[in-house]
């Protein structure tokens, strides 16, 4: 990878970040209403009191003034105080991130690992039962709403068989920390949401890997490797798979923001207090600082993940940086 390519991508990323930061300020304010409306719609309030409330929320100043104040605070690393939690935004967000990562990273790891193995196998045994099953399940999974599948799991495992908890993150009363009962409780609570999320993930990755592998295995260099009499496992993993990884890397890179962003539907059904729920909550209550904080973190991770993906891509395929 050349230094010029790296610098060009770095510059583009910096510009993109500035655009993201600016949009992050203006988008919440484009939404109808404002965070103080709950208070100043009180019919008993005088006009002076209404203006005072607007001032308390910093909404009395011109938008340009608010924007520069936001940039200034951001530069100092301050995301402000949540209107609804009455706590620093960073404190609220940092309490959610570990839970979200525990859930989404587990589901992603299972999805990626399962998807790669299954997809590669289906491609290698093309026309076999595994491939047919994969294609059939891809149709079924794409037609099956996540919430419906999650509720089915809850009904079966939590209410009929009573094996697993229906919702929540930990059994009440357990001491928090790195102790076995606590971790086991978290794992028990995470099982159903992880499975709900991982199912569609496995199938999605498997289809991607299968398609990519089919493309690659029909290439001349794979045929050559086979003709040389190499072990089929070596041909699959050393020759074909590495080349089939390019679209996979892109997809994994793009899914990184989802790991932090959480999964709104799954978090709602299982009462999993992650970032997805927090974003929805902030939007519903028009909690500008919290909306800005959550969206900024997500956007930053997405932009950085794209940057990293481009760098990895360039490493894997040297032709990329020439374009």
């Amino acid at each position, binding site marked *: 990878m050349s230094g010029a390519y790296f610098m060009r991508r770095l510059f583009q990323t910096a510009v993109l970040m500035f655009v993201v930061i600016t949009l992050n300020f203006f988008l919440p304010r484009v939404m109808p209403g404002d965070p103080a409306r709950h208070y100043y719609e009180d019919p008993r309030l005088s006009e002076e009191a209404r203006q005072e409330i607007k001032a308390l929320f910093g909404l009395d100043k011109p938008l340009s003034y608010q924007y520069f104040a936001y940039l200034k605070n951001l530069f100092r690393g301050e995301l402000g105080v949540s209107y609804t939690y*009455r706590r620093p935004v960073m404190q609220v967000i940092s309490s959610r991130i570990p839970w979200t990562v525990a859930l989404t990273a587990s589901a992603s*790891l299972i999805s990626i690992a399962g998807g790669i193995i299954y997809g590669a196998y289906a491609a290698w045994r093309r026309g076999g039962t595994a491939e047919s099953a994969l294609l059939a399940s891809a149709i079924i999974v794409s037609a099956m709403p996540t919430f419906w599948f999650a509720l089915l799991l809850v009904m079966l495992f939590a*209410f009929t068989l009573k094996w697993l908890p229906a919702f929540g993150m930990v059994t009440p009363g357990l001491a928090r920390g790195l102790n076995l009962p606590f971790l086991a409780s978290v794992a028990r609570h995470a099982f159903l949401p992880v499975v709900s999320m991982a199912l569609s993930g496995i199938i999605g990755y498997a289809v991607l890997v299968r398609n990519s592998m089919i493309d690659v295995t029909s290439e001349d260099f794979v045929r050559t490797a086979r003709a040389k009499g190499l072990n089929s496992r070596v041909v699959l993993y050393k020759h074909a798979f590495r080349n089939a990884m390019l679209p996979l890397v892109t997809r994994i890179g793009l899914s990184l923001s989802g790991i932090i962003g959480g999964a709104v539907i799954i978090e709602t059904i299982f009462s999993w207090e992650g970032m997805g729920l927090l974003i929805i909550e902030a939007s519903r209550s028009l909690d500008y600082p919290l909306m800005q904080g959550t969206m900024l973190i997500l956007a930053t991770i997405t932009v950085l993940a794209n940057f990293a993906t481009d760098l990895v891509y360039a490493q894997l395929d040297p032709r990329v940086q020439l374009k």
Partner: protein
Amino acid sequence: MKRLPLALTAVFLVAALVLGCAPKPATPPAPQTPPPAPVDPDARNLKVAVLSDARNLNPYMGMGSTETYITGFVYDTLLGYDEEKGELRPGLADTWTVLEGGKVLRFELNKQAKFSDGKPVTAEDAVFSFNFVKQARFPGFMAITANVIEAVLVDQYTLDLKLMAPQSGSLRLLGTTVSIVPKHIWEGIQSPLNFPNLQPVGSGPFKLAEKVDGQYMVLENRKEHHRHQYDLEKITLTVVRDETVGIMSLLAGKFDLLAWRVDPAVAEDVMKNPGQYPNVKVAAAPSSSTTTVMFNLRNEPYNDINFRKAISLLIDQDKLIKDLLLGFGRTQGPGLVAPTMFYYNDKFPAVKADPNAAKALLDQAGYKDATGDGWRETPKGDQLVVDILTVNVPPQINVAEYLVAELKKIGINAKFTPLTAEALRNRQMAPDFDVSLFNLSFSNPDMMFFYYHTSRGLITGGRVAGFNYGGHSDPNYDVISEAMRAELNRDRYVELLKQMQEHIAGVYYHVPVFTADVINMYRDDRFTGWYNQPERSVSNATTYRQLRPK
């Protein structure tokens, strides 16, 4: 070697999950001697499901239902309020007196009251709380304390609230909404608006024993509370973000009560199939929140009472309640005050739909199809298309559909515009509408002033000053409503409120569509004493006081 970390991660993950799902260890063999009779530690623990977390526990800044639920138990106010009788009852204060023609309210506190940290509650705490709320300018309390000059200490257990002007609602408003906080804690708070108060110390009947963010909260009975009215030892509030999972958990016996309004379809299913849902009960309580058709009286032809009255004759409340609310609703008279309210005027029962009478009224008032296109025009000959604004959710959107169909049947061209709640409110406040669906409630009698007084419909800064979005204006009504707000004699006060309903019934400014019930779902296998209260259903203070384990 490169693959080892990934492999280890996978193994750990699988192990953790398998460990998590593993069956519980076998129970050890029973001891030789019979154990003492088991005592259910949860026998007096009421398990309640809530849809949201308590994000902060600042009694002056909390906005959500769970937040007010908790602060309502943790903090005391000077007075309580019996909503059914419309009467005040003792709270932290044992007695209260109105002095100087209503300009001073005197409260004498109970001498046994203590905060949960053991310190006694004195008048100094109450004086501090009122002055603190006023000075800190908490947005939600600006209107409440607007009439207060200051709180003054009389003696260790007595305080006066000095008011700018006498108001009939002051005792209720100030006595029941301002939580009394411990001065020794709150006087040290530097930034009261940003104080989340996650370990609240109050003098209420319960204290917050445990809170895990986003998961659950445990309230523990303070048996030393000066009024000690609760048999429950604990109330555990569990956050369930999804209503379906909450309902399934109630059916499975994991909760005693769902603290939210249940969908009528679910309630109907449970009521029709009691065998399928043993011990699960539905409580439907009349509410005072009425869905109405609101007219913008500033615009033609909506400023014509005959036109408004004709539309009112198209609304078949019984049919709408049956079809849209599955029977979980009540008809509402044109006076708009619910029969459960202490000031209800029974001279104005619900009006039956009569499309023929509506047609006749329109003909008589000059709304005829002069052009022969099948649609009526205004008496001036102008084209008429009634546009009904509604929020884009059922049952309101179905009401709008129904109205459009009924209007078309009598020759009035009509359409409806579905909007988000926020957009609808903006159009109403602008005021940029002719006809709009609007929910109003008179559970607080003062609202009869705020919805109808001329001053509350004036347009300042491009928006309507108050809730009188349609611009109702009547000098006589203004005089009566102002007198009502200043009236301290209870009988005269109620009489004035009844007079106001007479006026409301005659102007067809808000035409009632129906009043939807408040529906709660609960289980009756662990506790007795559930009380279905108008406006609240079974999740109410009386229920909590009455509940006893079975």
